[in-house]
């Protein structure tokens, strides 16, 4: 075991993938000489050369579109979108090309493309640098969407994503890049938990709290705080947003009878909406209360000095837990009809 940062864990995962398969190429803006604006690809161009770690012109559609052509040739491109809010110029290439070409070609053309996106807020950034665009992609057939929450997962999941023959939107919670954790750099990937399986990171019988990315740590902290009041929260790190590992969530909710889903993205049409609906359908007779969503507001991402009023934090998550448990909460005096 080695103690490294989240960002370094992705770097090491990319290094191993580059070393093991010469069809793996990294593409993006500033990823070569600079090592990426977050230094995630630091040192990789020096080690593998400019044909494996490619600084591209500033065009997101160009990066993803040429990755499609490279995939036609059998390459496994790993694309870096510099910030979440910059992914939209490549939207057509992602949803109409990358996601659909396997279907459109009746299974003959594979698109083993990984699109890495540093996502989410909490770093006081300028506009377009703190977004959570995951629902656009979970809504798109043909894509897999994953979000890692800790260095050990990041190291393994980036390699699993690259090994996948399906395209993967790989979401990296940028505000956790500097968090350190133990990583087994010699881990045998064959023994690793599959990318599509969720992880229960705290156990409890009172309420199931599902989240992903940066909020997993916040949720764990919330569970610790709640335990002091005698409330046992089970925290599930979703990891895969498409497809969702419902088996893990169902098993938990059947025990707790209560579900809270938390994410930074807005509420409307979000991952939380999908999970709340699916669990209501699948576990209706087990539920003691309506599922609760704790999310960002349905607003454009606000200026940095307001982001604390947008992002779910420990207290807002605990307020949601209280709603699920029927304990006094911010909406206690408000009927759901009016709320």
């Amino acid at each position: 075991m080695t103690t490294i940062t989240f960002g370094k864990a992705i770097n090491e995962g990319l290094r191993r993938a580059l070393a093991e398969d010469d069809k793996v190429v990294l593409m993006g803006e500033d990823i070569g000489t600079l090592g990426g604006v977050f230094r995630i690809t630091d040192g990789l161009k020096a080690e593998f050369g400019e044909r494996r770690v490619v600084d591209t012109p500033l065009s997101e559609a160009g990066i993803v579109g040429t990755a499609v052509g490279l995939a036609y040739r059998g390459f496994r491109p790993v694309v870096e979108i510099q910030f979440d809010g910059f992914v939209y110029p490549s939207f057509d290439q992602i949803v109409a090309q990358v996601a659909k070409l396997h279907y459109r070609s009746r299974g003959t053309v594979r698109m083993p493309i990984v699109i890495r996106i540093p996502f989410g807020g909490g770093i006081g950034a300028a506009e377009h640098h703190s977004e959570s665009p995951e629902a656009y992609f979970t809504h798109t057939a043909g894509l897999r969407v994953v979000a890692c929450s800790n260095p050990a997962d990041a190291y393994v999941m980036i390699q699993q994503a690259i090994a996948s023959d399906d395209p993967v939107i790989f979401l990296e919670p940028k505000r956790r890049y500097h968090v350190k954790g133990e990583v087994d750099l010699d881990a045998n990937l064959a023994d690793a938990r599959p990318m599509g399986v969720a992880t229960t990171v705290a156990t409890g019988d009172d309420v199931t709290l599902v989240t992903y990315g940066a909020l997993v740590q916040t949720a764990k902290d919330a569970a610790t705080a709640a335990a002091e009041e005698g409330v046992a929260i089970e925290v599930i790190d979703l990891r895969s947003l498409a497809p969702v590992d419902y088996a893990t969530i169902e098993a938990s909710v059947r025990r707790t009878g209560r579900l809270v889903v938390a994410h930074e993205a807005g509420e409307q049409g979000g991952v939380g909406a999908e999970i709340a609906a699916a669990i209501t359908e699948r576990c209706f007779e087990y539920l003691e209360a309506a599922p609760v969503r704790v999310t960002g507001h349905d607003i454009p991402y606000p200026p940095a000095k307001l982001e604390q009023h947008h992002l779910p934090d420990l207290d807002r998550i605990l307020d949601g837990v209280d709603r699920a448990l029927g304990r006094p909460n911010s909406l206690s005096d408000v009927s759901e009809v009016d709320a």
Partner: protein
Amino acid sequence: MTPSDREATGLLTRPDDLVRLLDATGGRHANPEFDPWVADVDVDALIGLHRDMVVIRRLDSEATALQRQGELGLWPPLAGQEAAQIGSARALHDDDFVFSSYREHAVAWLRGVRPDELLSVWRGTAASGWNPFEKRMAVPQIIIGAQSLHAVGWAMGAKWEDSSAASIAYFGDGATSEGDVNEALVFASSFDAPVVFFCQNNGWAISEPVGLQSKQPLARRADGFGMPGIRVDGNDVLAVLAVTRWALDRARRGEGPAFIEAVTYRMGPHTTADDPKRYRTDDDLAEWRERDPITRLHAFIAASGADIDAVDADAKAAADRAAADLRAGLTTIPDPEPMSVFDHVYAEPNSHLERQRERYARYLAMFDEEGAR
């Protein structure tokens, strides 16, 4: 591109010049720069090009008729663009790779696509008609210009792997306004990708005249991206063959991308759902009918002393055979199985889709049971 850069490409022809080897009456124009590229094209080869064009025009009109008869959902006719497509596709090597739009039926035909493969998409029975790796031609692209980036990525990979193959991106005049095409030109230039941008300027993007896309010849844009641009008479199959050979050869030798504007005309509607009478006149059509790509090659072959009656008979027989194959092929296209709607969304097992598949199968089975009662 500075004049000295231009000299480095070895190209004397300016982007505003229209490269033409055969005029509308079949007269042969000497062109010192491009004649060498078709020096091997003898009368038999010309007769082959003529046959190709006659056959594909026939297949195109058959497909239009099949759409009118309700056998196809839609068809985008290529009539008028036979020389641009046949001339460029005949310049390709087997190991080159084509990234096309949805109108390159002649290119597909020359890549060995069968009639039933060509029609299945337009009949609505399949998402694509052929295996791209067998035909060395990607699935057709309906999103305007998106394939140009794919062609560049493929070519970047070819260069990185020291392959001698090149790719060709087919798109229209309308596509030159799309971001993807411009970004493709940037990437191709930056990475010296062995790719040829083949723009069929057929005058119209559905109802919009090319003047809405550009105030100047499209080939001029190439200079701004740092690659040579050539304007060629797109109804002159010999000139198209010559300039495309030149551009592909240059790309294969590692000299980077080139942009070809083939000036042609879409004689028919955008698709069978379009009504061009709403935006252009019979006079426009008459003017271009005078420049028909098949007529001029026919005149040139006749003037060369070949037995033109035999040429015509041979071309007609080939067209008749192809048309019969097309109609026969149509009947061999099976209607897809209902559950195949879920096939190939993912390459690997996907728990979410498996669940939907199982549930829909149960739903369909309900009708089987009702039928049995």
